[in-house]
């Protein structure tokens, strides 16, 4: 029987993406992630919100990307990157999963638990709805606390892996 190849070093793998250097200061690099999409860009991309060439404005892809700019420490310009450089940045796989669980899993679990308890106690739809909304708010507060702990441990900080090749895109890193 043919053996499937074993994926080794899984723990050290990271989720990679491409970011462009948009500003360099004495101590910091400002990076803007390149847009990734769930589909290949087709000829209809201009009408479905995927097109990255659309004019900046509220809700546009450009404004979303601007909102996702992040900073990497660059003490004394030691990293040697300039504005316009394209870099491959990464976060560890475990960080992505724990961040997802913190941001989405915890509030959802709190909301469903609170909703179930209220439904069991009162059996009324409107009360259950309010209970679930209350649970969601509590869960979001819990997520805020957990996110602070993750950030303090440095788990949420992306790190620079290397310069991106000229032909490298988010889909073929």
């Amino acid at each position, binding site marked *: 029987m043919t053996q499937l190849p074993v994926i080794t070093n899984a723990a050290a793998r990271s989720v990679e993406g491409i970011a462009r250097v948009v500003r360099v200061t004495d101590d910091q690099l400002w990076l803007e992630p390149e847009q990734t999409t769930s589909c290949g860009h087709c000829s209809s991309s201009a009408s479905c919100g995927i097109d990255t060439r659309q004019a900046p404005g509220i809700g546009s892809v450009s404004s979303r990307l601007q909102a996702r700019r992040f900073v990497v420490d660059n003490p004394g310009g030691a990293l040697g990157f300039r504005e316009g450089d394209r870099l491959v940045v990464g976060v560890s796989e475990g960080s992505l999963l724990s961040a997802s669980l913190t*941001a989405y899993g915890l509030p*959802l679990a709190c909301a469903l638990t609170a909703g179930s308890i209220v439904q069991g106690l009162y059996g009324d739809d409107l009360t259950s709805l309010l209970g679930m909304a209350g649970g969601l708010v509590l869960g979001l507060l819990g997520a805020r606390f957990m996110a602070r702990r993750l950030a303090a441990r440095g788990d949420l900080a992306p790190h620079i892996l290397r310069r991106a090749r000229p032909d490298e895109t988010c889909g073929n890193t």
Partner: protein
Amino acid sequence: MRDFALMMIGAALVNNVILARFLGLCSFMGVTTRVDTAAGMGLATTFVITVSSMADWAVQHYLLDAYGLGFLRTVTFILVIASAVQFTEMTIKKVSPKLFQMLGIYLPLITTNCAVLGVALLLVEGKMGFMSSTMFAFASSVGYSLVMIIFAGLRERLALVQVPRLFAGPPIAFIVAGMLAMAFMGFSGIATS
């Protein structure tokens, strides 16, 4: 309780959103190149589907049904879903800007995910109470996430094996997706009554 459990198993496995109802196929093929990104997308979608189903139930019950505006259902649900995504994005950004930087990339993709609207419309057909409809939506989205993660795992393996040149890439992925759908058809044998 037993009815709840059976309904949730039915929504997650027997009538799986992706493999039985063929909804959300865009993200199914687009975001499943790696298990971790598929899990992130799955969790984000689970959150949005559940929250928007809560809002959809309230809108359907207290606005559309109450005032005889059922003909506005689809457009209203699209508005509710877009608002739910925007709410999620703003909340995550407020709760933790660092989390938003890491996870915000998935949220714009969910707005155009037909699985979210599909589940909302299925809930109306089911004429369920609030808790049942929320649990149905949650179970449907868990089924969605489960298939995304399984398929991403298979594609990670596929990337390491040699396949004939004509089948490399999406063609072999579609064949594997078909086999996965056939495997899930086995769940239809579960007696739910």
